[in-house]
């Protein structure tokens, strides 16, 4: 790879992790997170890996930014453990920020940073809000082009090339840096952090500030859980002996004639 230094920023959002049905708080305005762990969207894990690989290939520096509760440090340290150099934590009290407010806080942090950032990476959509808003809005605030929904990307000669699925194939976009890109799960498989990586991560610098939250123009009132399906699979049998019953089902639904 060519050697032009690149400063890359990647933005992540801490979200509760639950593989099952969510439990809501009594007033149904929040997810009850008392028994849950936390993570970031797989799209964002991918964005972190992309940032690390770009800096490995081109030289330069990588920074992770999160707007969220102080505990978001946990997710930032995870990113640092696989190679991100430093962090910017915009601390909140946990109230939701809408897409525009989040974008304004991120754009302000970018302007205030000495680094300039040749490339700002986002997930295509956050795991919880999924507005697909923040990346594009940051791009407008900073006057940069935004490529979104990327399933592949490369940087060469000061240009960002990205592609994504489209009818019958893939569509390709190309823009000069500095730019914004939102990526999807699968662009690069995130590496596992090593033990030394985890130890190094603890010592990496995090710059903290507390922006003021503007009034939300997309304001949450409450959550509702989807109705229970009440469904339960019919057990066709145990082990290989059930094969004949499976074939009956294949026939019944027309999967085999």
């Amino acid at each position: 790879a060519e050697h032009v230094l690149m400063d890359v920023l990647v933005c992540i959002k801490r979200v509760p992790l639950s593989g099952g049905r969510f439990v809501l708080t009594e007033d149904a305005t929040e997810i009850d997170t008392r028994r849950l762990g936390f993570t970031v969207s797989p799209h964002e894990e991918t964005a972190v890996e992309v940032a690390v690989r770009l800096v490995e290939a081109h030289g330069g520096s990588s920074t992770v930014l999160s707007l969220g509760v102080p505990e978001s440090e946990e997710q930032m340290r995870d990113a640092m453990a696989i190679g991100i150099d430093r962090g910017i934590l915009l601390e909140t009290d946990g109230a939701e920020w809408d897409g525009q407010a989040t974008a304004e806080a991120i754009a302000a942090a970018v302007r205030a940073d000495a680094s300039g950032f040749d490339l700002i990476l986002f997930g295509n959509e956050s795991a919880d809000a999924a507005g697909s808003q923040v990346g594009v809005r940051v791009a407008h605030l900073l006057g940069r082009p935004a490529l979104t929904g990327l399933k592949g990307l490369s940087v060469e000669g000061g240009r960002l090339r990205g592609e994504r699925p489209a009818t019958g194939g893939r569509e390709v976009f190309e823009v000069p840096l500095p730019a914004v890109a939102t990526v999807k799960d699968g662009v690069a498989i995130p590496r596992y952090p090593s033990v030394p990586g985890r130890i190094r991560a603890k010592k990496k610098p995090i710059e903290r500030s507390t922006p003021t939250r503007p009034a939300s123009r997309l304001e949450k009132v409450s959550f509702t859980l989807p109705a229970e399906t009440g469904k339960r699979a019919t057990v066709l049998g145990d082990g290989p002996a059930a094969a004949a019953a499976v074939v009956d089902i294949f026939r019944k639904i027309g999967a085999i004639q």
Partner: protein
Amino acid sequence: MILVLVDHDRGELAELSLQAIAFGRQLAAANGSELHALVVGADGKGVAASLGAYGVGTVHLATHDGLTDYAPAASARAAAELVSRLAARAVVGVGDQRGNEVLAHLGAITGLPVAADCTSVVLGEPTQVERARWAGNLSETALLHAPVALVSVVPHAVRADAPADGSATVEEFTPTLAEGDLAVRVVERVPDAAGGISLAEAKVIVSGGRGVGSAEGFALLEELAGLLGGAIGASRVVTSAGWRPQAEQVGQTGTKVSPDLYIACGISGASQHLAGCHTSKTILVINNDADAPIMAHADYAVIGDLHKILPAVIEATRAAKV
């Protein structure tokens, strides 16, 4: 006036846009508003002319020398021009990659908030929306504080109307683009390699999770998929481990599928996986845990080790086919 953003691919109408039109039509009826649509690009002329059949009164066809293919910021600029010239009350797009992208640009240009993935919209001050969050695992009631409601419709929340008699007035205009609006546009297309059944369109999907155990373990799934004319799917555990390509991942951050038959082998049924397959017509589970969460979303199940069950199913299927 309610404005619907209609997408097309080089003159071919995007099917989901008809759902956005149906949604916009209900919204227009509820508010006594006219239904307008925006089609961008000269090659969208045929599409524009066809929309009267779906209840659109006026179609605005945005043409410009630079608009030769999809360019999201330019589409949004054209929409912004109509919003202010015609005092739109709402702009409705499809909640897919392109729809949400154009709406995000429109929101940034106009300074308006966007409610993505809506299932219901009641216009007012403020506007009240219901929207899917956590890939549909939660529904949110939210207020949109804005003079113009920018919303996208979650795919398949409403059905497209059948075409009926009716014709729309097509008004061609040249939007005033700002510098940079054409910076992002499709510069190249790479067609898919021929052959193979695409995951999104497959009638049968044989999908594997952590329980498959290895890349080699998928040979059994491939054999069964071959017999049933199906495609292979996978959970994120599988694609993260590199056992299968990420293009085969089903779920919230993978592909959303809706086949006639979804066979889930060694998949527990995390909400993020189900978000991509729960609309399948029939779900058959092969799992050694009779209490796996996926059981509450499936139609049929065989309990036991998939490595023993699949060879027997393959043999019985082969026997049944001759």
